[in-house]
């Protein structure tokens, strides 16, 4: 990972740190105390004038701040800082931590304000991609609802305070705690991997050993950690390598979303599934609700979550007992434990075939279990992976020395102590336990109730949320994009997070707060991170002053965003029988018990799942995410209880019926969404909704189901009763807005085949040009006039449906890049969503276990564009390079173009959607893209601003534009690189190559519109043994050959 000079980087240079620019390392000391006066900014946002004042104030105080650019002042720069071109965007490498998982990012900054978040291509876990959360964090940064002041509450009195007042209070309060060795002090943190926080924690525990330190995440992956402890008797980090996997079995795990290395997995999985590869991978998924992995699976078996461990045990029994796979050393006792699963009633018929496939791919297979699975299911997977020689190949284990209680136990424990009055001071760093702690904890006290018994509670948080409101002190937290921080990647390597902007509202980081409490004088985050880096890289004590060697390493670290070679060492799988035996025995006995539970209409299964948009609720105030259609239900601004069609029919409920869920003595009322493919008798509910103190966007959206959660049955379980409430609720979906009639459903089934073309691998090998033949037969397409010829560039796009996992990252990328407005639930319900890029989702085959097809659809830039011909004012015209260009200024808004667009990719501003944005929110806008007014049509332009920028740069540098230099936002962030853009006139370009592939087809080409975007047909790789046995194609879908 070589450091590189920003000026020579064609992409404009990754980052510049403060020192590099200003050469004034001492400046960073001013970071924390720089804006005490920002605290009084009104809740409804920072005005632009105020923002600029703050910016110039920072300059006046200390010269150049952070890695942000100096603002233009009325007096021009007499000496422009070296390398700084006003108006030119620059990119900085940083990281973002969500629930203890780091994402490597590259943030684009425009004159000192970050405007776009993308993945860092050199980061080992992101590979240039970014998920929806990371991308939407830019909107969170500028959210005017973010907490802006220190708030002290005593009784019903709420006072606006400042950090000085808190510091005075804290000094005195913690000085009182110190003599008692921290008796009564508890610290609750959200999952964090930050080494600087870890160091401060050690110091805290050293000084006050009675302090209790807890970590909690509502969406916790701790069961895997527990599984590693069960198998290897100490916690391990597990990292998967899907690139070499030929047979993959997923037990209720989403490898492609929500997984710590999801982006990396997605890239590798897409590679392994290339149909032209020597051996295409095969994916099996056992899951209750759909995951991206299930959507991608060649064989998906809808299985209630509580029965998935039994399936894992059956598969293990098949492998070890029937197919004579040797058990790893020290685990011989497992054989007799597995015996009951040889003929278990819930044993799937496909077990033997899957086992044979796994054996045939020995060393190149992979089994993984998800967070909802009990630890023994994880342990069983490790056992099978080890026996199949996968460990070290597809599964990498790394020691994770950190010892801490598991999240769900930590919360139960803490609340118990709080309710007993054993906690007098509670310090909460981040998180929102008053909202997302399970409502049903042992002892019957909820977190919110227990919090009332804590004398002093201090909450550091980005928002003044439910928890903040119940605490005696609320402290504003610095956003990840405005603060220094350090963290660890999933493989244990060190990563950097550097600020892109001064804290807008005077927030501080958790490390800074701990330092404020523990150190004299308190250090800035920058200082803390440098010290932690120094110590992590083998140094001791303080950062040496004026050490050029250290500075060089530090610069390189920031430049790359992470530290190569700092990953935790890999360890082999060593099963320790004395410890593992009893645990596994207990686990398998549990599985036996579970297997006896009969699910039926009076005993349903409840499964909690993190939302793909709001996660655990922390993104509830993020309008991009609220309005992002769910990858499968296409639901926006709501959560629902997901039921399979047969289950819904048996219970007599339909789409939008509000039902009462009763589980473990608690109840909640949710609308029903009938989702094909949901396992029978299993009901999935999504976390993250029903917030009451999220902000203007997120309050009152959906239903809070945390009250249903049980401290010990963390992810749900059987015993759910569902009754109708008799009420109905409007769900706003972006697809299938209304219940479809039989006629429409039949027609849709007819059309899916030609629209989303796919075939099985065997068919593809036999007829590589199957995609062309799946399209409708039509007479030769002739033109009435001389066709236009593009002499220069001829832009085009190829979208590989075989790689697309439907993760929505491209949709958010497009929204962020192109200043696409958010319209709200009511407007979505009316069919007025604005996203330029949408993911069409179709089901094929049996409603109980359909195959899902995803298809990203944006403007396909027809050469013979129907929209252009009908616009009366010539507001949509063709460019020389073949783009179908929209001239916003000229648009009158007849909407005729949209009517005539066969792809329906045009979006209309029915209202002035940008009207009520505050000045702060407007800072998130991309200055290179026009903000559209009311009454104007808009649509995808292949990111024409990026095209122009690259062309101008190439021209300035007097060179020919290279292939791949222009990357539209969607293609840039696609984790699987399914979207490729380029010049079709260049036969050597990637896009030309892809469009020439035999799998390539053009959707609706029979209309003679000549789309520039081509799709590459999807190829599935079903197990030949199962294809006939399971009757996959029952229901006779639309494929015709």
């Amino acid at each position, binding site marked *: 990972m070589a450091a590189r000079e920003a000026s020579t980087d064609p992409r404009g240079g990754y980052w510049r740190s403060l020192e590099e620019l200003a050469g004034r390392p001492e400046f960073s000391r001013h970071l924390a105390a720089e804006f005490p006066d920002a605290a009084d900014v009104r809740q409804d946002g920072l005005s632009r004038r105020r923002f600029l004042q703050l910016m110039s104030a920072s300059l006046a105080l200390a010269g150049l701040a952070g890695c942000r650019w100096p603002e233009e002042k009325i007096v021009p720069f007499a000496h422009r800082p070296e390398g700084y071109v006003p108006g030119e965007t620059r990119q900085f490498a940083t990281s973002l931590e969500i629930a203890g998982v780091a994402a490597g990012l590259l943030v684009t900054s425009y004159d000192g304000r970050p405007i776009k978040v993308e993945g860092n291509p050199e980061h080992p876990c992101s590979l240039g991609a970014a998920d929806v959360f990371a991308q939407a964090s830019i909107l969170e940064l500028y959210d005017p609802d973010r907490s802006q002041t220190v708030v002290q509450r005593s009784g019903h009195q709420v006072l606006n305070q400042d950090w000085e007042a808190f510091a005075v209070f804290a000094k005195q309060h913690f000085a009182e705690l110190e003599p008692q060795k921290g008796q009564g002090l508890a610290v609750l943190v959200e999952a964090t991997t930050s080494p600087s926080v870890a160091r401060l924690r050690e110091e805290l525990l050293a000084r006050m050993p009675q302090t209790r330190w807890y970590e909690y995440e509502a969406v916790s992956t701790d069961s895997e950690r527990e599984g590693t402890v069960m198998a290897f008797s100490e916690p391990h980090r597990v990292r998967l390598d899907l690139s070499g996997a030929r047979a993959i079995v997923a037990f209720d795990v989403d490898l492609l979303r929500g997984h710590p290395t999801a982006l990396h997995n997605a890239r590798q999985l897409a590679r392994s599934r290339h149909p032209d590869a020597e051996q295409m991978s095969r994916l099996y998924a056992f899951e209750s609700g759909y995951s991206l992995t299930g959507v991608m699976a060649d064989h998906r078996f809808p299985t209630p979550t509580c029965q998935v461990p039994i399936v894992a045990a059956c598969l293990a029994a098949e492998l070890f007992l029937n197919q004579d796979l040797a058990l790893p050393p020290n685990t011989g006792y497992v054989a007799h434990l597995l015996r009951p699963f040889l003929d278990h009633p819930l044993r799937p018929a496909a077990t033997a075939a899957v086992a044979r496939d796994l054996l045939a791919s020995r060393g190149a297979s992979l089994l993984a279990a998800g967070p909802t699975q009990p630890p023994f299911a994880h342990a069983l997977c490790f056992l099978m992976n080890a026996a199949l020689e996968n460990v070290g190949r597809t599964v990498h284990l790394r020691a994770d020395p950190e010892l801490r209680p598991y999240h769900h136990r930590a919360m139960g424990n803490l609340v118990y102590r709080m309710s007993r009055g054993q906690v007098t001071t509670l310090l909460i760093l981040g998180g929102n336990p008053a909202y997302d702690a399970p409502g049903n904890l042992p002892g019957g006290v909820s977190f919110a109730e227990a919090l009332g018994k804590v004398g002093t509670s201090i909450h550091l948080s980005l928002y003044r949320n439910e928890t903040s409101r119940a605490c005696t002190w609320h402290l504003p937290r610095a956003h990840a994009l405005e603060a220094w921080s350090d963290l660890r990647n999933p493989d244990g390597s060190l990563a950097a997070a550097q600020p892109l902007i001064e804290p807008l509202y005077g927030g501080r980081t958790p490390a800074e707060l701990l330092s404020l409490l523990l150190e004299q004088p308190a250090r800035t985050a920058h200082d803390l991170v440098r010290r932690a880096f120094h110590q992590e890289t083998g140094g001791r004590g303080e950062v040496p002053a004026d050490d050029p060697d250290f500075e060089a390493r530090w610069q390189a670290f920031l430049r790359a965003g992470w530290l190569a070679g700092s990953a935790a060492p890999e360890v082999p799988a060593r099963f320790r029988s004395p410890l593992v035996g009893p645990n596994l025995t207990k686990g398998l006995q549990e599985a036996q018990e579970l297997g006896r539970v009969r699910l039926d209409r009076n005993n349903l299964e409840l499964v909690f799942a993190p939302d793909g948009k709001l996660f655990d609720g922390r993104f509830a105030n993020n309008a991009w995410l609220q309005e992002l259609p769910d990858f499968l239900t296409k639901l926006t601004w709501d959560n629902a209880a997901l039921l399979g069609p047969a289950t819904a029919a048996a219970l007599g409920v339909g789409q939008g019926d509000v039902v009462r869920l009763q589980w473990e003595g608690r109840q909640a009322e949710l609308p029903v969404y009938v989702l094909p493919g949901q396992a029978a008798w299993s009901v999935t509910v999504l976390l993250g909704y029903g917030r009451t103190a999220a902000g203007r966007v997120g309050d009152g959206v959906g239903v809070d189901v945390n009250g249903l959660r049980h401290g010990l049955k963390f992810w749900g379980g059987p015993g759910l009763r569902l009754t109708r409430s008799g009420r109905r609720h409007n769900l706003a979906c972006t*697809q*299938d*807005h*209304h219940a*479809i*009639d039989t*006629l*429409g459903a039949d*027609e*849709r089934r*007819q*059309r*899916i085949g030609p*629209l989303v073309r796919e075939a099985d691998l065997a068919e593809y090998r036999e007829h590589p040009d199957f995609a062309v033949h799946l399209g*409708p037969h039509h007479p030769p397409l002739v033109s009435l006039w001389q066709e236009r010829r593009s002499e220069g560039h001829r832009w085009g796009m190829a979208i590989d449906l075989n790689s697309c996992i439907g993760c929505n990252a491209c949709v958010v990328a497009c929204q962020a890049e192109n200043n696409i407005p958010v319209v709200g639930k009511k*407007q979505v319900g*009316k*069919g*007025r969503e604005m996203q330029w890029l*949408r993911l*069409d*989702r*179709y089901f094929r085959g049996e409603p109980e276990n359909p195959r899902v097809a995803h*298809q990203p*659809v944006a403007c396909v830039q027809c050469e013979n564009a*129907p929209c252009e*011909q*009908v*616009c*009366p*004012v*010539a507001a949509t015209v063709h460019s020389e390079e073949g783009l179908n260009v929209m001239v916003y200024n*000229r*648009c*009158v*808004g*007849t*909407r*005729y173009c*949209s*009517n*005539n667009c*066969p*792809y*329906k990719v*045009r*979006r*209309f*501003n*029915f*209202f*002035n959607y940008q009207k009520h944005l505050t000045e702060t929110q407007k800072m998130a806008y991309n200055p290179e893209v026009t903000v559209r*007014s*009311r*009454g*104007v*049509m808009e649509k995808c332009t292949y990111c024409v601003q990026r095209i122009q920028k690259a062309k101008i740069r190439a021209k300035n540098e007097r060179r020919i534009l290279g292939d791949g230099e222009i990357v539209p936002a969607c293609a840039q962030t696609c984790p699987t690189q399914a979207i490729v853009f380029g010049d079709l006139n260049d036969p050597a370009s990637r896009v030309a190559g892809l469009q020439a592939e035999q799998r390539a087809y053009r959707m*609706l080409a029979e*209309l003679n*519109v000549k789309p520039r975007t081509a799709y590459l047909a999807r190829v599935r790789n079903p197990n030949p043994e199962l294809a006939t046995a399971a009757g996959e194609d029952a229901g006779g879908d639309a494929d015709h050959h």
Partner: protein
Amino acid sequence: MSSVAVVEIDNTIDDPTRPTPLVLGGNDFTSVTEKISGIAEKPRPPRAWYVAFGVASFLTAVLFAMLAYLILTGVGVWGVNIPVGWGWAIVNFVFWVGIGHAGTLISAILFLLRQKWRTSINRFAEAMTIFAVICAGIFPAVHVGRIWVVHWLFPLPNYQTVWPNFRSPLLWDVFAVGTYMLVSLMFWYTGMIPDLATLRDRATSRLRAIIYGFFALGWRASHRHWHRYEKAYLLLAGLATPLVLSVHSVVSFDFATSQLPGWHTTIFPPYFVAGAIFSGFAMVGTLLVPARRWFGLKDIVTLYHLENMNKIILATGSMVGYAYVTEFFMAWYSGNPDEAFTFYNRALGPYAWAYWIMVTCNVVVPQFFWSKKLRTNTAVMMIIYVLVNVGMWFERFVITVTSLSRDFLPSSWDYYKPTLVDGLTFAGSFGLFFTLFLLFIRYLPMVAMAEVKTVMPAAVIEGEHRPVGDYHGDIPQTHDLHPVMHDHPEHRGDHL
């Protein structure tokens, strides 16, 4: 003074031995003038007029309030969405333009075809045309997203030298409807000049004399005036005739030239024109039946007139029905699955209710007119007229909305629901229409007096069985033959 012996006769009975009397009740030239001018001259109109005017002008106010709300807020106040980018606004536009067809058809085409019975109803129908086109014209103007730049649809010279896109049917609409409006207005006005002069001459107040005198353009009923007038009228009729066919053909191109299944079809121009005449006649009838009753015009607008109109409604309604069948046939015969689906979807999909309202009202209901008893019964015809109006509105709704709501990609399918604003705007357009109409019948001669007189027996020259007045192409040699000048005492002054 020539007059014919008055007997109560049923002029709907076709007697080939003599021309069908077109004016009954023993009216002579004087009584016709008295009757028709009297309506516009009464010091105060009947109370019913006030009530009707109050309701209509209230609805007009609603219309303007809705338009103001729309323009201040955005097109989103309507139910339109993506994929259904055109909703009630375009439906209403096509509906009103269609209604506007009857007037010009009656005045121009029937004039050229020498259908004498047109004289009693043409003024009425032309007025209706003008008002319907005014109502129609509002919708395309306000349905755009940015009404403040709607003038960009016109080929106005500008410094950027940006011209409209001449390939767009919306632009053709601008020309077609604009021309139609202008020609219809001129035709209506030109035909009214002699009658305006009558009102001027009968005026009892200075103000009325000035206003009517201004619009009468100094008409003195001289031979030269008549000569020029007849020529101009003929020319305008010639000009208006192709417009009757062109305007709705062009409106249909809005749909036909697109590539949307259910829109992209060559049958649209004739089908739209037939439908327009159909709906236009129904609307004339809807207005005429009560008007002739309330204003005592049964002798001038006789059952015979109404029956003729009903025959046209029966004919055009059947044409429309035939077009519906042809559309289905072509959807099947073309072998285009998208097209076929669109039509199954119309008949059986989520909008089937609208489709079957349309078929019932437009195809089934007019069939009652095969029965002479029913087509000469004013109560029955009134019901049928209203139903045909409803049916024709639904036809436009079915065409516009069903095709858009389900086009090529099932992922984009959506259901369109109008809002309250849509409904009130439509109701308001009726308000505007009736307000204008009530003003018309209050202040202007609602029957073309001069023309009616030409078809009265009194206009027939002794010894000849041919009424004069219908002399286009063979202008009488002597002015003595001109009935109007002879028999109208109020015109005598003009000879001086």
